[in-house]
């Protein structure tokens, strides 16, 4: 799994590439929590994720709750078909703010 971070105004955009599973989700969790410290909004690009398991979904749920408790915004965009399927299987799709494109995700505030 590779993680890239860049700025778009006050928003931090985090891009994840590869597999998010029991072995890699702790790294993603650490990165997302650290990044959220430094911005009012975090947009996570999931387009290049080939595989995500329940530990990855649980990580996203944790980050969402953490962001809400600190009045910050956490949004997702670019869900790959594999990610969409796991979101539907776990019934979490409605819990997150999900956008198709980066532009839509950035304009969501």
């Amino acid at each position, binding site marked *: 799994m590779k993680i890239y971070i860049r700025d778009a105004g006050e928003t931090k955009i985090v891009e994840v590439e590869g*597999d998010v*599973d*029991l*072995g890699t989700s702790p790294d993603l969790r650490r990165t997302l929590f650290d990044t959220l410290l430094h911005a009012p909004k975090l947009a996570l690009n999931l387009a290049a994720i080939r*595989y995500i*398991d*329940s*530990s990855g*979904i*649980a*990580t996203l*749920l*944790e980050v*969402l*709750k953490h962001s809400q408790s600190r009045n910050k915004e956490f949004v997702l965009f670019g869900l790959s078909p*594999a990610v969409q*399927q*796991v979101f539907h*299987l*776990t*019934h*979490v799709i*409605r*819990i997150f703010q999900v956008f198709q494109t980066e532009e839509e995700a950035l304009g969501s505030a």
Partner: protein
Amino acid sequence: MTPDSPCLHLKFAMPSDARYLPVVRGAIAPLAAAIGWDEPDCLAITLALDEALANIIRHAYHNRADGLIELECRQSPDGLEVTLLDHGEAPDKTKICARAIACDQPGGLGTHIIKEVMDTVSYQATPAGNRFVATKRLKRTP
């Protein structure tokens, strides 16, 4: 396929180390495709078995990487049967629970996925170890 014909039968042994999960995932999806499932079903079956392995690593071996997990996938006349065997702590059946639908709590997701994807699931503590058996039927179109 008749009950007497040779069938696909894969056996793995892996350490209880999450670094090896991609190796197993890489074998399960092609196996499911060879039996006849389409791509979304192959992903779902792979995910369910990956979740079962992850549960063993986390709960039976408490994230220790030196445990042994044996995995057996067998094509059956009506689909697939998977058996996992480990020698860690036996599962507490009272604590094996799927999460509530659309709940925002992170726990129980893996068990929910396994039950949602597979047709039958059972856990059993045996003298040989903890045995997890799951089956999935292939729904053939007429």
